[in-house]
């Protein structure tokens, strides 16, 4: 199960993802981002309630980062130590801005 909460303030979009970002839920997040990312220059992912991320979730983050590289900034906040370790194993720590 996954819940996505989006909050738009001017050009800044905060996306809070709760629960599990996996093969079954990643397409939903991808669709939500596609719908709302166009005019955004500052994208913030709040992962403080994210419990799980698989390669399907990483794929969505990579796509979002590539998109934001052309139009603004992207940061990832609030990850648990276990999720940070996944970012580290996969080299995503070097690609993403993790706060």
């Amino acid at each position: 199960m996954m819940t996505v909460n989006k909050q738009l303030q001017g050009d800044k979009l905060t996306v809070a993802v709760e629960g599990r970002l996996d093969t079954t839920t990643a397409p939903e997040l991808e669709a939500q981002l596609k719908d709302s990312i166009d005019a955004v220059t500052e994208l913030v992912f709040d992962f403080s309630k994210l419990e799980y991320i698989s390669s399907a979730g990483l794929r969505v983050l990579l796509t979002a980062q590539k998109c934001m590289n052309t139009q603004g900034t992207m940061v990832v906040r609030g990850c648990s130590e276990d999720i940070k370790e996944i970012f580290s194993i996969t080299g995503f720590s070097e690609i993403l801005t993790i706060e």
Partner: protein
Amino acid sequence: MKELIIDALTENLPQVLGFVDEQLEAAQCPVKIQMQIDIAVEEIFVNIAHYAYEQEVGTAAVRVEVTNEPPAVQITFIDQGIPYDPLAKADPDVTLSIEERQIGGLGIFMVKKTMDDVEYKYLDGHNVLTLKKGLVSK
């Protein structure tokens, strides 16, 4: 040993994870190790769902065996699809920049990195993939 036999469809992933988690929770598996095992199980099961049977729907068997001395789990996936060794694929280069990064192969790479042992065999018309992981945090 517990076994689940299920249609190899992506939409059955929550059931597969639920089945595995039940055994892991009964074995008091630490949360971090459970997440790593879930990731590995997802990658392997989704691989079977995507590639084993082409357009047809086939089944996958998932066997979970927990041992106490030492605390460890062995998870075996068996399908009757096309012979396919996911471990044969070269590891992605995780040091490349974002522009050069290829997303393919990342799932299997995570499996290799987080599990203690991963083994593939093709036996009597079956793909047999086995994961092993100790249940004690290092």
